[in-house]
């Protein structure tokens, strides 16, 4: 799967300020792209445009060569289901970790969503969290659970917004291992971070782009 941004401009509803200004960018399966830049530079907005959540006001988002926002809603949904974006602040449903991790599978109508979720938790070494309630998790655990929920649906592109933000050293190590494994399976990964982190470099980053004032500069 390849997503290309061609001269993308984006402004939030009601705002006259462009959060993205003429962005050209390409992400694809099996490659890791790191987006860096200061707070408020437009990293999250860029990730959400790449996640096919935000429609640009100008420019085009091409998915495998097709203009995504010109496609019919059904095709859009099937393409959007191949990309998963994970928020910086974990957003978990009330209920257990297992129910949360199964959510994406349930949304797709996958039979055996719960066992699939359990399998993902097991593969990520997080099985011990399965029965915990959302309120009983630390910030780091909640972050890993939200990543596990994304991984469970086996996306072709995984977009992570500040994934290390709430993690301690051991859990950062765990996340690096998970991301390296995903990369080796051909999953495209885009990671946004407001400061360069050594751990992220160990995933095997193919390209680093810097976002400043809504503009993207390749490094």
């Amino acid at each position, binding site marked *: 799967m390849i997503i290309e941004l061609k001269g993308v401009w984006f402004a939030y*509803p*009601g705002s006259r300020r462009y959060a993205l200004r003429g962005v050209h960018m390409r992400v694809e399966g099996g490659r890791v792209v790191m987006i860096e830049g200061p707070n408020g530079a437009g990293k999250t907005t860029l990730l*959400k445009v790449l*996640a096919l*959540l935000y429609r640009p006001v100008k420019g085009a988002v091409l998915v495998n060569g097709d203009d995504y926002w010109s496609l019919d809603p059904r095709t859009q*949904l099937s393409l*959007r*289901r191949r990309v*998963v*974006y*994970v*928020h910086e602040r974990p*957003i978990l*449903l*009330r209920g257990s970790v297992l129910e949360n991790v199964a*959510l*994406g599978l349930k*949304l*797709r109508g996958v039979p055996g969503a719960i066992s699939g979720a359990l399998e993902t938790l097991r593969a990520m070494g997080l099985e011990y969290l399965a029965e915990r309630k*959302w*309120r009983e998790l630390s910030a780091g655990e909640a972050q890993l659970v939200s990543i596990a*929920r*994304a991984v469970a*649906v086996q996306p072709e592109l995984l977009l992570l917004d500040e994934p290390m933000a709430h993690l301690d050293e051991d859990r950062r190590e765990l996340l690096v291992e998970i991301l390296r494994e995903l990369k080796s399976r051909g999953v495209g990964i885009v990671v946004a971070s407001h400061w360069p982190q050594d751990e992220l470099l160990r995933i095997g980053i193919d390209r680093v782009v810097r976002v400043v004032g809504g503009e993207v500069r390749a490094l």
Partner: protein
Amino acid sequence: MSIVEEVLEITLRSLAVSGTATLLASTWSVPLAYILAKPGRLRGLIASILEALVGIPTVLLGLALYMLFSRSGVLGFLHLLYTAKAIVVGQAILVTPLITVTACRVLKSARESFEEMALALGADDLQAMAIALRESLPGVASSVVMGFSRAVGELGIALMLGGNIRGATRVLTTAIALSVSMGEYDLALYLGAILVAISVLVSVTVKLLEEVQGP
């Protein structure tokens, strides 16, 4: 009818009238809150107007509705004046801004977090909406309970539209007002204690619901 029976009857009528009014108001306030929770200038303007109406004096609203429901009023043909139904309608209108505004805040937050999270995880629009609504249910319920609290404690509408008729439209607040005017302070205090007990119960319910909703 003994005094205890009368107090019980008044209390039950208060709960029934304000409960019905709150439920009635919820049927339009919650969908309206969901619509207003989407971004947009017109929606923002409507939300601002409703926010300003949250604290509308009940006497003023009671007077406006009295003029509408009186025999010579536009809605006089409905013969609602001095009935419990008139109080229900009046209280439903009174609590609409409060329920809408507070539910809107909850739903706006749910839309920005849960709805977007669901879409990011592959939900279609309906699935995302259902998740946002489900997750905001305790918060929305808390808004409805707050609306009930406002309704049960108001006096102006119950007095002007209901007329404080014994056995028909007398509710806790109008009964307290009457007791005070007749110098029956013990009864007024007794009725007041019931009203306070209801308010405390409502506050505890809101607190519990907000805890379920989480940060």
